[in-house]
C-alpha cells in the first residue's frame, strides 16, 4: 500500500466528480429523468471513465501478476448473481433517485458545507450498519 498513490487517486476522483457535475444532485436527477426532461450529460462521465479504465484494467489483469506496490490484487471474493446483489442494487437505485447522491459524490460534497450532505451520509452509514449487523461476514 503506497499512500502517495492513495492521495493522488483520491484527489483525482474528487476533482473528477466535481468537474463532471456528479456532485450536483439536480444534474444527477436530470440524468435519471429519462421519461421526463432527460439530461443525458452524465453518460459521458461513465463513458470517459470506462474509456480509460476498461482497457487498462484488462491489460493489468492479463499481464501483471501483482500490483506495483502491493502483494496482490484485492478482488471481490463473491462470484455469481444472487438475490442480495440484485436486491441491494435495487434498493440503492431507489435511494439514489430520491436524493441524487450516490456514496462517492455524497462524501466528496462534505467540503461544500451543506447540512443535507451530513444528514444523508449519517443515514447512509446507519443503513450500512444495519446490514453489517445482519451479515456476520463483515468485516470482509
Amino acid at each position: 500500500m503506497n499512500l502517495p498513490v492513495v492521495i493522488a487517486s483520491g484527489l483525482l476522483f474528487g476533482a473528477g466528480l466535481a468537474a463532471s457535475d456528479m456532485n450536483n444532485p439536480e444534474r444527477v436527477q436530470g440524468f435519471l429523468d429519462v421519461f421526463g426532461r432527460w439530461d443525458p450529460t452524465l453518460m459521458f462521465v461513465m463513458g470517459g471513465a470506462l474509456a480509460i479504465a476498461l482497457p487498462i484494467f484488462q491489460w493489468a489483469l492479463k499481464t501483471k501478476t501483482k500490483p506495483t506496490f502491493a502483494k496482490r490484487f484485492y478482488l471481490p471474493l463473491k462470484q455469481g448473481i444472487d438475490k442480495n446483489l440484485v436486491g441491494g442494487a435495487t434498493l440503492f437505485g431507489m435511494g439514489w433517485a430520491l436524493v441524487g447522491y450516490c456514496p462517492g459524490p455524497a462524501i466528496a460534497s462534505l467540503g461544500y458545507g451543506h447540512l443535507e450532505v451530513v444528514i444523508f451520509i449519517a443515514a447512509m452509514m446507519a443503513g450500512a450498519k444495519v446490514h453489517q449487523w445482519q451479515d456476520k461476514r463483515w468485516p470482509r
Partner: protein
Amino acid sequence: MSEFLSTSSVLFALLGGLMIGLSSVLLFTLNGRIAGICGMAFSLMATSLQRNIWRLVFLASLIIGSLAFHLFSGAEIPKPPNTSMPLLILGGLLVGYGTSLGNGCTSGHGIAGIARLAPRSLIATLTFMVAAILTFYVVKHVLGGAI
C-alpha cells in the same frame, strides 16, 4: 438533441470521467485496490483504524479534490439536494443498506467492476440504473413528489 447537452457540460463530464477512470486505474494497478467508495466508507465501521488508514486518506483526498476543483476552476459549488427531510433520510438509509447488501455502488460496480468485466458488476449496474430511473419516474411523475 437534448436541451441540456451543451458543449462545455459534455466536455467537463468527459474530462471528469477520464479523471475518475484514471483514479480507479492508479489505485488498482499500483496498490491492487478497487476504488469503491461505499466499501471504503463502510469498512470504517467494521475494521480497525490501522487497516483503515489508507481508506481515510483516500476519502479525505476525495473531499479535498472536489473542493480544489471549484477553487481552481471557479465553478460554482453545487446546491444541496432539493429533497424533504424524511426523503433525504430514507434515501440515505436505502443507499447505505442497498450498497452494503449489493457489495458496491456506482464507483465499485459501475466503473472498476465493469472495467474488470465482472458479471456481478454488470448486473448490479444495470439493476441500480433501471431501479433509479423507474423510481424517479414513479415518485416525480406518477406520485407528483417534490424530489
